[in-house]
């Protein structure tokens, strides 16, 4: 956990007071909706189809049990008893009244939670690997760097009115669980030839109507230089990013128009002018932040205790969950447990207040009071003793979050779509629900292996459809919902944009198309352990396209 101090608490109190004043000015008409818009957006408040929506940041995906209970409280008190976890380590409440927003924010601030910079044209919540600090394959805890960046970029006086939103992700592991390549700025910790740890910096990734993956502009940046380098990137973007067209305002367009090499040179020149100034990080400041990340007092335990083997033999459901939802931890005798928020036929990422309270209790009992939120819209308990897994399974199963479909075809990422969002052209949630029903049989889903479906209800791509193994994008044609299907996308360390397989299909056909693609894969794969994504890579889209459109 990260320990907040009086500075953090004071800032949140001041922010709530400021927002209370802004809402009062809006309610009296002193601020018009256009003026209020940027101010509310910078506090995570959108005006959606039915009501205001409040988006709360979960910095680097780490949540304490008391914070989860506060989210449950807010869901009950101000919303309709549930919240929705998003693809960027945030949670959204979709039914909040404007006049009650300041009170909701004050309640959240009591638990060190806020919606600052979760929307608007500013630096958004900085995300990382949801397994940060516990993943066996990381070289150090990336959250230290995410937190340094978070502090530096909170209410930054120069960068609070950028051309467009700016998303940063940080990862320190071999496997990219933070989807680095689709961010405006990516920070990857790695070791150089001399064995020093530093950052590889990428810029210009992003989805939306013009998708790009990041381009590396700095292969190795020393740790002391992180803030100054990011400042240089943002200063160029703030001055030269396009402001004439909202669809061309992200940094990806600036990088594309200038070329990554030239953009990198411009950054380098700006950075040289500031790198030895006040932003150079001295070791005391880094150490101070690192010291605020507290790790549990782990017991000395052996891997694979006898109790686990016994439970596995006696309970097939437990065994299936263990194989699917439990991952290796860097400390012997412990495990990372993923909680699927993808029950068959329900909304991906939704969590009820009752579930939140129960998860908080289970986290206290079995995970040192800590919960993680991942970009796949699932949760995790990061510090579970392996001997406790059977008891934890029973607790999670009782509230419906032990479905062993993690990373399978029914573990779908979807945006809220036309059911909530004023930008959407088509529904996303009902499409996800229908697909998950088709693959409700876990034996069939397991037989398909790892397979990620991502669904967006419009070109803004909040469901990251370009990087789904199967990507589904809702479009509107003559007042009807149609869906474009891509395959072969991925958001990990081998990030790739998917390829369109053919003309868009109507709403009623989407689940059939997914079934066709799944069947084609089963016929085409070389071996049972060749993943869908590898079969697409080997054969291209053509054989899938033939299968899908043969009868359409």
């Amino acid at each position, binding site marked *: 956990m990260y320990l907040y101090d009086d500075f953090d608490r004071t800032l949140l*109190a001041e922010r709530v007071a400021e927002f209370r004043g802004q809402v009062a000015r809006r309610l009296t008409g002193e601020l018009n909706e256009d003026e209020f818009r940027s101010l509310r957006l910078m506090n995570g408040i959108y005006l959606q189809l039915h009501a205001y929506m409040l988006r709360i940041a979960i910095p680097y995906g780490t949540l304490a049990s008391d914070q989860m209970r506060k989210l449950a409280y807010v869901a009950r008190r101000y919303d309709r008893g549930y919240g929705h976890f998003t693809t960027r380590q945030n949670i959204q409440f979709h039914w909040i009244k404007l006049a009650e927003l300041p*009170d909701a924010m004050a309640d959240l601030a009591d638990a060190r939670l806020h919606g600052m910079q979760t929307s608007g044209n500013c630096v958004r919540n900085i995300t990382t690997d949801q397994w940060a600090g516990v993943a066996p394959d990381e070289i150090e805890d990336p959250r230290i760097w995410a937190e340094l960046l978070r502090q530096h970029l909170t209410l930054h006086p120069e960068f609070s009115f950028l051309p467009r939103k700016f998303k940063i992700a940080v990862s320190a592991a071999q496997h990219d669980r933070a989807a680095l390549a689709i961010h405006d700025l990516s920070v990857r910790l790695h070791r150089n030839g001399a064995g020093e740890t530093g950052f590889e910096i990428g810029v210009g990734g992003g989805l939306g109507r013009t998708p790009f993956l990041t381009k590396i502009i700095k292969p190795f940046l020393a740790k002391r230089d992180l803030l100054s380098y990011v400042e240089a990137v943002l200063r160029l973007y703030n001055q030269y990013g396009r402001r004439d067209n909202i669809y061309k305002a992200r940094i990806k367009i600036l990088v594309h128009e200038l070329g990554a090499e030239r953009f990198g040179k411009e950054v380098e020149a700006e950075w040289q002018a500031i790198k030895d100034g006040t932003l150079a990080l001295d070791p005391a400041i880094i150490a101070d932040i690192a010291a605020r990340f507290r790790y549990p007092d782990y017991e000395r335990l052996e891997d694979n205790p006898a109790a686990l083997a016994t439970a596995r033999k006696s309970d097939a459901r437990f065994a299936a969950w263990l194989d699917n939802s439990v991952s290796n931890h860097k400390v012997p005798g412990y495990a990372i447990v993923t909680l699927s928020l993808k029950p068959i036929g329900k909304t991906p990422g939704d969590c009820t207040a009752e579930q939140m309270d129960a998860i908080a209790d289970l986290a206290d009992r079995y995970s040192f009071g800590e919960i993680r939120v991942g970009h796949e819209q699932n949760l995790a308990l990061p510090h579970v003793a392996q001997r406790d897994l059977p008891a934890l399974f029973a607790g999670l199963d009782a509230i419906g979050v032990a479905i062993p479909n993690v990373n399978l075809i029914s573990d779908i990422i979807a945006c809220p779509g036309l059911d909530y969002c004023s930008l959407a052209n088509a529904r996303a949630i009902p499409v996800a629900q229908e697909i998950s029903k088709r693959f409700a049989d876990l034996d069939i889903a397991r037989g398909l292996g790892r397979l990620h479906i991502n669904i967006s209800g419009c070109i803004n791509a909040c469901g990251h459809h370009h990087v789904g193994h199967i990507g589904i994008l809702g479009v509107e044609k003559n007042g009807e919902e149609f869906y474009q299907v891509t395959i072969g996308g991925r958001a990990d360390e081998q990030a790739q944009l998917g390829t369109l397989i053919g003309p868009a299909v109507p709403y009623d056909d989407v689940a059939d198309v997914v079934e066709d693609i799944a069947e084609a894969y089963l016929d085409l794969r070389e071996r049972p352990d060749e993943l869908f994504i590898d079969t697409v890579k080997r054969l291209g889209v053509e054989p899938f396209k033939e299968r899908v459109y043969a009868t359409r």
Partner: protein
Amino acid sequence: MPLVKSGKVVEDRYVRVADGEPVPEQGAVIVSADRFLADADELGQRSDPVGVIWPNNRNVADLEPHLPKLALVALVFPAYKDGRAYSQARLLRERYRFRGELRATGQVLRDQFLFLVRAGFDSFEVVKPADALAFEEATKRYSVFFQPTGDGRVTVARVRSGREAQAPQRQPERLSA
């Protein structure tokens, strides 16, 4: 449009001279960037103050050689969500060491005041009279600052690492009503 300087609403002693109009011999004047660059030498001879309005899509590095002749630089916010002038202000103050008056013009609302002050602005042409009167309150809204900028406010990192002795200026209260 009220002008705020040193935290108070004051009278503007500068007169804006349109391109093509003669520059008066006496009194403080503000001219456009094109006019200033065309007549920089002549304007530099004036004994009374000269200021320039610098658009937000023009590199402030072009102004650097002329800064000693300028008493005022006015930067522009065509819409308050257009934040280019924040970068220009910091460059003028922190890189080019401009010490004259740095004025924010255009769509300037109270919600920007603290950002503007932190970026180096010290005078403000404010759209709404009520906002001008709220200047003091708006700039004291926050007591916690993370970024070292040219305004010299002490950052949290320096206090935490023991380089500056300063507690938060306000104790956090319980937030809920």
